[in-house]
């Protein structure tokens, strides 16, 4: 093969990475999975702050009845951009990014299977977001049709401005980035594992990333096709989703939710993975029922593909369709419940150390169960008809995405920050952050359940002075500002810890997965020598040669990745 004309140079030399060159170019041109992962995290933090500011403006507007602070047009743009940003540019890329950083380390690989595609995914994500936010500076303003952009509202006759076009284009671009990232993860996890790291010994986080990546591979094309059709409608006058010209607005809903519901699990499965890593380490016990946690993930992934129409109960699909979708949706509670049981059983009887990551993981279980229970409630059609498009729904999905995914994300940041940077985060500031978040979050969103049942509709820029509405909204707004304060503490904690945090050492939490077997931060080449893997907790086996997890396992040391 030596005389072969290389299309792409083989990566025989070390890839450019941390430490080689600290200039900006070493980041922009990097194809090192750790640098790309960190860029993902920084990118999502920036979008998180922007999305948070939008939320604050929304809550300020709603603090009192009849408020005139924001115009209705501005309000529509803000809630659209808030939802779109938080889902597509914060939670999803954070989880992808943390996966990009950790998956190769956890499976003992040198890098992702396709480092250049990895960089491409990141830049598509970053520029997709820029494209979306550029719309604020155009004459037409930002998209203002909600994060699911129902047709025909998002179509030309009803939205003459270019907002929805920017929305579809930005998400199309970043979606292709996510798709590529999903493909890359699947191939990496299936082919790049170190000898001995069998599929049944994969860390649970990697399992969840695998299922998530499969979901990305199979559902992103659904929304990509829908974006393409919407763009053709808007730019070339096609008539897919315009009922006036023979199209079908329902078709958009089917396509959007056909993607949108699995997307919910894309947002939460890696979060499950983070929690499944954190809880055992801080309970000093191996995870209870590894097989069930991993298997139920596969079940969730498969079930999630067939339940989208529960977002459309109020559309008029007919009682039969509603009944079947209601049934199928409730089934998802089973594998999810199995997971909760496993986490709790892992903590049961363990020596629990409530450091900040564990605090967030514990709170995650509680908040997510609240969101899950309200989810089972609205999977029942009559309840959904009463509360759909009210603040009850807003409360529900904030409990799953904020109380679920974001709490797990915070747990993950505190847990892996020492690995990413070599320094510990401050525990004191972390505890402040945690308690402010818990108080602020529940204050903001719990009360919205009641507001929803009392009939307050979502997505309206103001409301009449109905009994209690004003005071309840004010409580919610105060909660939102407490969350804002907690985020300030969090960012301050990051800055302080980066500069003066205690040195972490290789394995500050005494964890058992492979990423802790290398230095913090890991060198460009990840591992000098990947420890032998002969069980699910390689570092435990290494530290306790007398009582390994799998005493009969043989050690495999040689192989292409060794």
């Amino acid at each position: 093969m030596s005389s072969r004309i290389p299309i792409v140079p083989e990566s025989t030399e070390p890839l450019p990475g941390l430490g080689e060159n600290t200039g900006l170019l070493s980041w922009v041109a990097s194809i090192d999975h750790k640098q790309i992962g960190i860029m993902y995290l920084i990118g999502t933090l920036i979008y998180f702050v922007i999305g948070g500011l939008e939320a604050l403006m929304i809550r300020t507007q709603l603090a009192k009845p009849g408020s005139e602070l924001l115009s209705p047009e501005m309000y529509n743009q803000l809630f659209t951009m808030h939802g779109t940003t938080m889902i597509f540019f914060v939670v999803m890329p954070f989880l992808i990014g943390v996966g990009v950083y950790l998956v190769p380390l956890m499976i003992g690989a040198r890098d992702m299977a396709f480092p250049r595609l990895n960089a491409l995914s990141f830049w598509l994500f970053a520029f997709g977001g820029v494209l979306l936010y550029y719309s604020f500076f155009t004459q037409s303003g930002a998209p203002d049709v909600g994060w699911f952009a129902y047709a025909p509202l998002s179509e030309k006759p009803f939205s003459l401005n270019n907002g929805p076009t920017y929305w579809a284009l930005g998400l199309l671009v970043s979606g292709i980035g996510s798709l590529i990232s999903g493909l890359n993860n699947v191939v990496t996890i299936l082919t790049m594992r170190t000898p001995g790291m069998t599929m049944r010994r994969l860390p649970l986080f990697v399992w969840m990333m695998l299922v998530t990546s499969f979901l990305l591979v199979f559902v992103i094309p659904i929304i990509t096709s829908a974006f393409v059709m919407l763009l053709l409608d808007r730019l070339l006058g096609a008539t897919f989703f315009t009922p006036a010209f023979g199209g079908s607005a329902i078709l958009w809903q089917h396509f959007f939710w056909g993607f949108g519901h699995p997307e919910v699990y894309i947002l939460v499965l890696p979060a499950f993975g983070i929690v499944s890593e954190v809880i055992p380490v801080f309970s000093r016990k191996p995870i209870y029922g590894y097989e069930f946690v991993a298997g139920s993930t596969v079940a969730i992934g498969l079930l999630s593909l067939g339940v989208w129409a529960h977002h459309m109960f109020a559309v008029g699909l007919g009682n039969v369709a509603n009944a079947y979708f209601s049934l199928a949706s409730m089934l998802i509670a089973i594998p999810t419940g199995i997971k909760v049981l496993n986490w709790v059983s892992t903590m049961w009887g363990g020596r629990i150390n409530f450091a900040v990551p564990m605090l967030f993981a514990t709170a995650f279980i509680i908040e997510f169960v609240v969101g899950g229970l309200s989810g089972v409630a609205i999977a029942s059609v009559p309840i959904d008809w009463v509360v759909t498009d009210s603040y009850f729904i807003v409360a529900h999905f904030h409990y799953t995405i904020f109380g679920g995914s974001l709490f797990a994300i915070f747990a993950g940041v505190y847990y892996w920050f020492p690995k990413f940077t070599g320094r510990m985060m401050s525990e004191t500031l972390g505890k402040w952050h945690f308690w402010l978040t818990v108080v602020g979050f529940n204050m903001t969103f719990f009360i919205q359940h009641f507001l929803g049942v009392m009939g307050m509709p979502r997505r309206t820029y103001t409301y009449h002075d109905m009994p209690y509405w004003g005071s309840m909204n004010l409580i919610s707004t105060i909660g939102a500002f407490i969350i804002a304060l907690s985020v300030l503490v969090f960012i301050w904690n990051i800055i302080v810890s980066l500069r003066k945090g205690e040195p972490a050492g290789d394995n500050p939490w005494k964890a058992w997965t492979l990423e802790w077997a290398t230095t913090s931060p890991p060198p460009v080449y990840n591992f000098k020598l990947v420890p032998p893997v002969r069980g699910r907790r390689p570092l435990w086996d290494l530290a306790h040669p007398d009582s390994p997890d799998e005493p009969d396992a043989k050690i495999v040391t040689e192989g292409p990745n060794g």
Partner: protein
Amino acid sequence: MANNRMMIKFFIASESIFFLMLILAYVNFHNSVTTGPTAKSSLDPYVTGIFSLFLLASSFTVWLAGKSLKNRNRSGLKLWLFATIVLGAVFIFGQAREWFGLFGRGITISSNVFGSTFFTLTGFHGFHVCVGLVMLSVLLGLTLAGDFKGPKSDAVECVSLYWHFVDGVWIVVFSVIYLWAFL
């Protein structure tokens, strides 16, 4: 490397879903055209059928190209890659001819739902054929420059997998658009 072939397989799986959605959109609107052109009133299944044969034949030639690579037959590889490109280009020519014929009769993507779904579906398929042609041309260029001595090459295998996929999609698209309307 097994990586590349696995990647292209998952990529094809993902692309299949994309085409599946476009096809579902076509199927969804198949019976709902009330005014304006329909598949039956505007398409010519015979001419398109003949051009389709060129695309199907190209799947065969790309397979022969792979076989030549395996036998380290450089001239065979060049010949069959070239033949594949020509056959694919003839198909694209046929599609362009069909499109311009329709434009000439005032049938465009904005005519009605048939126009929207038809041009989107065949357009994306044609786009994939064009991408395939570019990749095949790159392969041919590299072969002429002395690459691909065989017996194995991920690049050739992946491109030919992709090409078979594009072919397979056309069989489904042709059945759904043309056969369904005229049988």
